[in-house]
């Protein structure tokens, strides 16, 4: 039993090696991951968000006003190997226990349905004729891409699909201010599809 005491050199060395796992893995992520992202040590699901990396500038003024500390601290936080898992744990618990979302741009609809706020706001700001105009803007660009791939012996396929808000509006439209009329919301996708169909038949490009 005495061999297991912390004062024993072997026990102490093993414990210190364990203690160093997190600092070393974080240091690895800090130094290697920016150049070789595939080699980064990460535990947990990949994070979808993007964080702004403040420049780490070591100078007396940066040290004095705290910007160096803030930037360095932010980098170390990002480099923590278990950060994705911890964020997932926290978000799950807060959502399951309190029904609250920690992601700032996600809206919770009826029956626990979730949607990205930007999709819902787009749906709620549609006006009549907007679909035709949007199709007129975007389809030539898609056509150019199709032409490019056809010239290279490939096929470019795109799908026009309703957003989650358009597919299940009853869950979401009461969650944000929604000035668009029901007609304007409904006509948008058929407008887009109609324009797309005309182009497709003219250019004989198959659609999915």
């Amino acid at each position, binding site marked *: 039993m005495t061999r297991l005491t*912390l004062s024993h050199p072997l026990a*102490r*060395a093993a*414990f210190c090696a364990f*203690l160093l796992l997190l*600092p070393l893995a974080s240091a690895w992520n800090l130094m290697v991951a920016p150049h070789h992202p595939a080699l980064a040590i990460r535990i947990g699901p990949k994070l979808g968000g993007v964080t702004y990396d403040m420049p780490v500038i070591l100078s007396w003024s940066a040290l004095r006003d705290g910007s160096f500390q803030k930037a360095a*601290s932010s980098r170390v936080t990002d480099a923590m190997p278990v950060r994705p898992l911890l964020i997932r744990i926290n978000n799950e618990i807060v959502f399951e226990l*309190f*029904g609250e979302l920690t992601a700032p741009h996600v809206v919770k609809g009826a029956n626990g349905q979730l949607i990205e706020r930007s999709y819902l706001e787009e749906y709620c700001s549609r006006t009549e004729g907007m679909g035709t105009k949007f199709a007129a803007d975007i389809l030539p660009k898609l056509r150019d891409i199709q032409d490019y791939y056809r010239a290279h012996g490939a096929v470019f396929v795109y799908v026009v699909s309703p957003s989650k808000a358009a597919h299940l509006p009853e869950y979401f439209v009461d969650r944000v201010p929604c000035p668009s009329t029901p007609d304007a919301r409904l006509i948008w996708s058929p407008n887009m599809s109609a324009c797309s169909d005309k182009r497709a038949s003219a250019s004989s490009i198959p659609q999915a």
Partner: protein
Amino acid sequence: MLFYEPLFLTVFPAVYAFYLLASGTSARKWTLLVASTLFYLWGEPIFVLVLLASTAFDYALSFHLSDPTPLQNRRLALTAGIVGNIAILTVYKYADFLAENLNLALAPFGAHRIALLHLALPIGVSFVVFEKITYLVDTYRGTSRPAATFHDYCLFVLFFPKLLAGPILKYHEMKDQIAKPPAIEWRDFATGFLRFARGLGRKLLIADPLGAFVNQVFAADPASLSAGAAWLGLGSFTLQIYFDFAGYSDMAIGLARMLGFSLKENFDTPYVARSMTEFWRRWHISLTTWIRDYLYKPLGGNRGGETRTYVNLWICFLLSGLWHGASWNFVLWGAYNGLFLTLDRLFLRDALDRCGALISTAVTLFIVMIGWAMFRSDSPAHLLPFLSALFGMSQAPLAMEIPAEVPFTLVLGGVISLLPATALYSPLIRAYEQQSWLRALTMAALVIVYVLAIARAVTVPFQPFIYFRF
């Protein structure tokens, strides 16, 4: 740097490993001193220089505070040391408050306005200054000898677990551990880690979720608060300040214990107190005992008759209020506490004793909560309408959205705070001491609390400890 910041959680294990591997007393002390200096430098790169200079001044003076220096010179040296330390506190914390009030008072006479310094308050300055004074006074009183080396004294001043928000250490209580850092065993690590985990849980899982709601309530126009919202906000703050500060103390005591050091307790279930006198024996114990030993007793304590005792109590609590912050609401809070301490001595404590445990605890908690309303209000101008709202006298109460986690956290915090006042507590403690499975279950629960707290720490923006402002 906060103890639950990912940076600290990443760096501390490396420092701890280095500390464990350091052989010999000197190497350990230097490891701790360098780590502590870097820790403070990270947050206060300029003030750390002032602090080191002041520490050198104290150390030099301490050799003139005991025999064979003549008594008159010893007194002179002690006065110089105390004035030097109070001067630091005055310049950084009170100068602008004094200047603003002088400007206000002298404005009708057309006096020239005193320019404000606008200095940022260094984190932990109030705690460090009080600790440095204990070194000087303990040496003067002969309770302890001057530190053997300058770096021993620096380590006492800068020891990072307690540096930012206490517990306020007294030199005579720490000198032996500082001179020879204790050896570390598994028990120290386990006990310290679990204590640290408890502190993290208190801060991140109870204080912080309540803090966001408290900010919302106290930022609202108090005239628009319903009595329910005002009480909910005040109740939330009552728990927030306890779990925030006691959480920090747990982390400090836990970290120190991992390093082999034993720090005195700072809290003892304060909300179960049955009188204000008892509350102050249980709340921020290190400050209360500091005031008792280094202010109340030198003022004469209770040796000069009843009136003198009451005056001394009032002075101590007024200064305790002012210690918390340079603002009139803190002075008012100090005076309010001094008043109830005096009333306790006159009749209140005896009257509460006769009412039974439930009523005395409830009345004491009510007095404490009204005190917290003074403490949390930004100014006396906010306080009066807020007190009116508490008693249902607001004019146009607005509905306030209550985040879903607030009721849950309030109940959890309330149960944890008040459980020791119930008949369940003693059997629970006995069972914990006797049943190994219950101890194992508690440990497992604390490990889970640690993971959940860290998960919150890396996800939610930081909320600094309330007592970092003092």
